[in-house]
């Protein structure tokens, strides 16, 4: 048989309709369990090899933030090969060691290749790496891992524990953009209740855009890692319980905002000053299943978050300058998922966050630089076809003010037990004053071929 599992047409005769199914017999070893030649030490590993090609294909005029105009040419953006390795081993009763890492090679045509002075570039990243000890009522996990809060997938106001990196438009889902952090997580299980607490002794922050990527912009000053002049920590806890048709969680945490705040260096040149802001988060999330409909709600109250403001000095001879003010913020994500049938589902979520009484926190000569209310809407449609071999997903994301819109269609085709190919088309539109204005009128197309074993 063809090793790629492709159909051998010659094995299906034209007279199958005349076959006597009443006297059917099956070929020998037709359903024999595949013999595994994998050595025992390799069993805990899973490997995924991927080759990705992605290009911006719409040549169009662009207007830059400074008002100048130019052309965006059709260009190959991603041409990369990656090896994702996953290891999971319950090596002793009640113990687990889990790790995953990714190695990438950036070939000619990839923006990383261009950013590396037209040389092949490589990258290695450790994702997960933790040890877990579990007993009847407790579980302790220490190492690089993720903690996900919130019921809404993709735009929950509570999904703030881990940092994220949307490096380019091949990653548009938060679940693929989340970065692992070094955490100690303790879970306590009692009946239908689960209490989960974490400590992070080395909080990290969203990395700046990678040079050459579609999101990259030339900053006025170098954006460097946060300079730690004191020990930082994060801590949080969540209580979750389930009853008929619903799961409910309440949570609280002391966190640092994932995004650093940058300001100009006093000298006016060199590295930007970065500011990390700590705040308190209180939240609640819940879902309710009603037939084929699932309702999701996440609510988050953030105390003492930072907002960017523009200060007008009282001295008219001085120029306005950027600063930050602490405020309180209330956010909510309301969503639903509907199972159209057993193969199709539709998911919609709308997230909004607003500063509470911003005026009361502002000095008389300061104005907010950000919108008081921000948010986004996310719509996803998915369809499993051909017994799950073909998966269609359509996504539409938009800022609440429609300042930027992203539409994506992807088709994943599983060719065999190991081989899959995914094609994707992504279109973006953004207003000139939007943070994503650089992506306006872009159309990206690409494919990823992967072999998992």
């Amino acid at each position, binding site marked *: 048989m063809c090793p790629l599992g492709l159909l051998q047409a010659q094995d299906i005769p034209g007279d199958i309709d005349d076959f006597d199914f009443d006297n059917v017999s099956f070929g020998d070893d037709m359903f024999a369990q595949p013999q595994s030649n994998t050595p025992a030490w390799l069993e805990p590993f899973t490997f995924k090899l991927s080759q990705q090609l992605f290009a911006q294909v719409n040549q169009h005029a662009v207007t830059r933030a400074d008002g100048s105009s130019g052309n965006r040419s059709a260009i190959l953006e991603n041409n990369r090969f990656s090896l994702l390795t996953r290891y999971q081993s319950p090596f002793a009763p009640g113990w687990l060691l889990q790790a995953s890492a990714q190695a990438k090679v950036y070939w000619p045509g990839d923006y990383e290749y261009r950013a590396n002075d037209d040389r092949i570039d490589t990258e290695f990243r450790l994702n997960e790496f933790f040890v877990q000890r579990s007993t009847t009522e407790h579980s302790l996990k220490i190492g690089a891992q993720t903690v996900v809060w919130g019921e809404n997938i993709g735009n929950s106001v509570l999904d703030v524990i881990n940092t994220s990196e949307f490096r380019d438009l091949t990653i548009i889902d938060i679940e693929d953009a989340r970065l692992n952090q070094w955490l100690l997580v303790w879970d306590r299980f009692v009946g239908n209740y689960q209490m989960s607490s974490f400590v992070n002794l080395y909080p990290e922050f969203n990395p700046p855009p990678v040079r050459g990527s579609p999101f990259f912009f030339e900053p006025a000053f170098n954006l460097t890692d946060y300079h730690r002049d004191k020990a930082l920590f994060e801590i949080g806890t969540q209580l979750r319980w389930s009853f008929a048709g619903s799961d409910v969680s309440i949570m609280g945490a002391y966190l640092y905002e994932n995004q650093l705040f940058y300001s100009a260096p006093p000298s006016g040149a060199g590295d930007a000053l970065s500011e990390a802001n700590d705040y308190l988060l209180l939240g609640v999330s819940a879902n309710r*299943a009603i037939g084929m409909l699932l309702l999701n709600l996440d609510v988050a109250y953030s105390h003492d978050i930072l907002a960017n403001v523009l200060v007008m000095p009282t001295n008219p001879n001085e120029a306005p300058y950027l600063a930050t003010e602490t405020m309180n913020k209330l956010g909510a994500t309301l969503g639903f998922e509907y199972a159209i049938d057993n193969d199709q589902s539709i998911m919609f979520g709308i997230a909004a966050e607003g500063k509470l009484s911003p005026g009361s926190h502002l000095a008389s000569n300061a104005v907010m630089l950000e919108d008081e209310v921000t948010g986004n809407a996310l719509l996803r449609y998915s369809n499993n076809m051909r017994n799950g071999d073909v998966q269609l997903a359509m996504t539409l994301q938009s800022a609440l003010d429609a300042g930027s819109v992203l539409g994506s269609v992807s088709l994943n085709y599983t060719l065999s037990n190991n081989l899959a190919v995914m094609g994707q088309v992504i279109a973006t539109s953004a207003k000139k004053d939007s943070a994503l204005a650089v992506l306006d009128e872009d159309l990206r197309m690409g494919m990823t071929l992967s072999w998992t074993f």
Partner: protein
Amino acid sequence: MKNSFYRCLSGGTLLCVLLTVSSSVFAQMNAREILEKVEDAQRTTTDSAFNRIQLSSCQFGVRDSQITCAERPRVKALESVGVNFGPQNKDTRSVSVVLEPPAEKGIGMLSVTYDDSDQDNETWLYLSALGTVKRIASGNSDDDSEPASIFGSEFTTEDQDTGKLDEYTLTIVEETTESGRDIWKIESIPNEERARKSRYARTVQYIDKERFVLLRADMYDQHDREVKRLIASRVELIDDVWVARSLTMMNLVSNRLSNMAILEIHTGIDVPEDFLSQRTLTDVAFRETELQKLREQID
């Protein structure tokens, strides 16, 4: 029954009476009683049970007068633990974890299915990419939605369903033999309400008289065209229950088949209540420890 009675007259009277009575009892069993016995046996395979299943699906063809896969089968291996609970033990709570293929390894599902159609079934899914357990909007397969495919195979939830005998007209069509076994051929025709939800307008089931196990089922659509055929083989006695360890569902319309091979089946084990929980989907250390304890019960 009459012939066996006369043959017995040459022997002891009491034995003849007993044999005649017992055969007359079976002869007097109606279709519903027969299928109830079959379903009772089927339910025991999900009650306090630990199973390892392999689902193989492929396009099929004919070679040398034998059905064979025309392509390399798509194989899915699962491990599942379940218990029955509720009124008459007709509700089921189970955890399934995917072992193969590699791309889906580790995907876990917790399901609670209720026999009462007024209660919604509940399903939670764990994908490592999600990072958390996710309740799934799936509704009740007993409602107006079509039966769901089981892990992408030709088997559907309707094929595995039990406890709906009241919704069918059941008739013993014939008593004959199938694969060398004495069987009842029982025809099931859904009532109006069930017909709206079912893919089959008529089903003919071949029930082994001695072992009360389904050997074959022919499923017909509303045009009385046979659309699917189920063939059971490797019938074995496991924990005092006859179980077919190989089930092959052939879709005669799409020429695709799926084989469900029960690689391991252990019933009557003591499953801790906290094992069938969301924790089992995410806490691999806990899951493997508890599975090892279940395996020790078996040993």
